[in-house]
């Protein structure tokens, strides 16, 4: 039977097992919305802004191993979506975005709501397509899903002109795809894996540095096996949190700009470093020249060759999927008669413990007068037994959430690391809650960030999403204020958030429960009450210390050991 292009697009989503489609209608996608209306399998979530559709699809993908899917109209629909797409791209999140385009005969004529969607998104997608023939819709969507989730994942855009979504053709969903110029690697090179094993076994001061790739590839189990077998210290990047249990004694905390002193010192002073699905970001190793001053052997495992040797020289590059590479590495290590030198390793651990003491670990001075943001996160951890999905926005609150909530499982910590997109937290939490209807989902945000997508409280009402929003309201764009305090002579240029709304009333206006928490002694009772309201969204407006700063901090451009530990040092 012949179907319209629109019907075909929806049938493809059904074939891919898509549960939720996050979107917003408009002229160029009317046929697709019509096709959507006439079926029940794919459920549509109507957001209030296209950026939120993409973040919600993104949160859905990050909290599962599935591809997030979104649908937007042409022109302003797709331009609104760009921030979301770039966010997903920077963090390698598998996603398919379908956008409507003006009719193919009108392309190039500055038609109503025309933008060059393929051109505008080109630098922030893994790949994109403009459909030119109705027969191409099914094979292209098949390719889009394959590209999004294979190799290094990423967002893929399919732009469908309106007239094509209304033309008819036979629907055949291809069983297989092959893209001749695209052949992502699987296994790693065995010789390199053997060399890596040799280096690891001979190390005196080894360090394991694991990133978002572990979470993306589902290799947490393999990683944990490797770390336990070797007995080495391990650190995670912001994106890697949960890839190794944070409560494990071998975990030395997150590294980087706001990482622990011991993690950063161990990175700087180790003699063998193995990087696993991590990309030596500038927020992670700071100044590259400073990092390179200390000689060390580096093993780097990543599926994307361009991640390897991009910012630092690598001695043993291993290109491949983490799971098979780590399995093979584990097998080689287990078969080896050699063992890491116990005395060397003990001395190294002793050194790391000393750094932990010298750096003071993660600490803050709690108060009975004013709510400390770190205390809110610690209490959140306690109340949720470390078992919640935590999404966050961007700023100081994000760093405190990363530092003080100890993630023992992958895909529980959901934040925008690469692009650092304020406004990510709430819509991402919607995607997470839809994927995990029974789970506890907390969104840690700031009064600045939440206002970038606060309209989504309306979506949450419509779809009964009982998210718990923890707004650490310091009345400042706190992360900006912190930099201005440290590097711009206390000149707080435009970082004070004046004229804030009454968030309690605002939450109530959207039909939710609002709470304002002003006293430290109220933090725990309030959180308990909020999390007991299993069916309701609760917006908690915590009035936190406006002067609190995030420590430790490696100032931008400095080396990993040039860290500021706290205000009073």
């Amino acid at each position, binding site marked *: 039977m012949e179907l319209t292009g629109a019907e075909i697009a929806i049938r493809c989503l059904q074939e891919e097992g898509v549960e939720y489609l996050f979107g917003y209608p408009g002229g160029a996608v009317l046929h697709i919305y019509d096709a959507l209306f006439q079926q029940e399998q794919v459920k549509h979530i109507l957001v209030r802004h296209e950026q939120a559709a993409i973040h919600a699809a993104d949160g859905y993908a990050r909290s599962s191993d599935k591809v997030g899917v979104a649908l937007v109209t042409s022109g302003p629909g797709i331009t609104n979506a760009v921030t979301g797409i770039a966010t997903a791209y920077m963090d390698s999140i598998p996603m398919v975005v379908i956008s409507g385009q003006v009719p193919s005969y009108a392309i190039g004529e500055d038609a109503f709501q025309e933008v060059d969607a*393929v*051109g505008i998104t*080109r*630098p922030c997608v*893994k*790949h994109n397509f*403009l459909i030119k023939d109705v027969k191409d819709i099914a094979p292209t969507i098949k390719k889009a899903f394959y*590209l999004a989730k294979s190799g290094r994942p990423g967002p893929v855009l399919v732009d469908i002109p309106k007239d094509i979504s209304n033309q008819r053709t036979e629907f055949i969903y291809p069983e297989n795809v092959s*893209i*001749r*110029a*695209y052949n992502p690697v699987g296994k790693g090179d065995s010789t390199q894996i053997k060399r890596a094993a040799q280096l690891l076994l001979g190390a005196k001061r080894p360090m394991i540095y694991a990133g978002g790739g572990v979470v993306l590839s589902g290799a947490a189990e393999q990683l944990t096996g490797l770390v336990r077998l070797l007995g080495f210290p391990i650190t995670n990047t912001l994106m890697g949190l949960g890839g190794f249990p944070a409560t494990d004694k071998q975990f030395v905390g997150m590294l980087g700009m706001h990482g622990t002193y011991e993690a950063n010192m161990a990175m700087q002073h180790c003699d063998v470093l193995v990087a696993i699905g991590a990309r030596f970001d500038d927020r992670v190793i700071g100044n590259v020249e400073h990092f390179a001053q200390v000689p060390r052997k580096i093993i780097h495992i990543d599926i*994307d*060759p*361009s991640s390897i*040797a*991009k910012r630092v020289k690598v001695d043993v590059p291993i290109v491949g999927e983490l799971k098979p590479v780590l399995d093979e590495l584990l097998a080689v290590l287990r078969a080896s008669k050699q063992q890491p030198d116990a005395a060397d390793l003990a001395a190294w651990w002793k050194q790391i413990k000393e750094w932990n003491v010298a750096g003071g670990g993660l600490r803050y001075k709690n108060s009975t007068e004013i709510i400390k943001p770190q205390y809110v996160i610690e209490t959140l951890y306690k109340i949720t037994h470390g078992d919640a999905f935590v999404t966050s926005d961007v700023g100081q609150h994000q760093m405190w959430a990363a530092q003080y909530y100890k993630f023992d499982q992958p895909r529980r910590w959901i934040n925008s690391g690469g692009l650092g997109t304020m406004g990510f937290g709430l819509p991402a939490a919607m995607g997470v809650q839809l994927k995990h209807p029974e789970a506890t989902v907390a969104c840690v945000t700031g009064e600045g960030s939440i206002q970038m997508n606060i309209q989504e409280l309306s979506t949450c009402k419509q779809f009964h999403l009982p998210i718990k929003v923890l707004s650490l309201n310091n009345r400042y764009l706190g992360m900006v204020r912190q930099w201005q305090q440290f590097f711009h002579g206390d000149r707080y240029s435009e970082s004070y958030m004046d004229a804030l709304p009454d968030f309690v009333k605002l939450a109530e206006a959207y039909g939710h429960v609002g709470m304002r928490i002003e006293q430290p002694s109220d933090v725990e009772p309030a959180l308990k009450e909020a999390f007991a309201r299993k069916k309701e969204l609760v917006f908690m407006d915590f009035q936190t210390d406006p002067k609190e700063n995030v420590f430790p901090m490696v100032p931008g451009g400095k080396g990993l050991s040039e860290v500021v530990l706290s205000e009073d040092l």
Partner: protein
Amino acid sequence: MRHIISVLIENEAGALSRVAGLFSARNYNIESLTVAPTEDATLSRMTIVTRGSDAVIEQITKQLNKLIDVAAVMDLSEGEHLERELMLVKVRAEGAARDELKRMADIFRGRILDVSANTYTIELTGTRVKLDSFLQSIARDLILETVRTGASGIGRGERILKL
């Protein structure tokens, strides 16, 4: 260092803009870029001349390979290769200069494609260096127009870039 990189890419709308966009987005330098379909019409062959440190060139080849439409990449400068560029030069050819220009064209194995009362249009192929030196060998004020294709490159002997 100057590098000459060959790329086999799907002959599809937008493929060229993906390559050009990559170079500008990542702040890589393009000295010249030529592209045309190959004997297999579904593929285009591109020659890119660029400059950069070894680390930058390594990233360029990796980033090119990462493009979904790119089927194969070869850094020709890593081995024996040939490089040719085509140039058309229109010169003011009057009086004594007319003979002189004809002579120069012969020396450089150029061909005069078009003759008018006051001009010659000369065709030259060769390496960039050869074309540059031709231009340097004639008086600057005689040159009316130059059009250059940018380099095309190919490996020597069994160095073959094919799918």
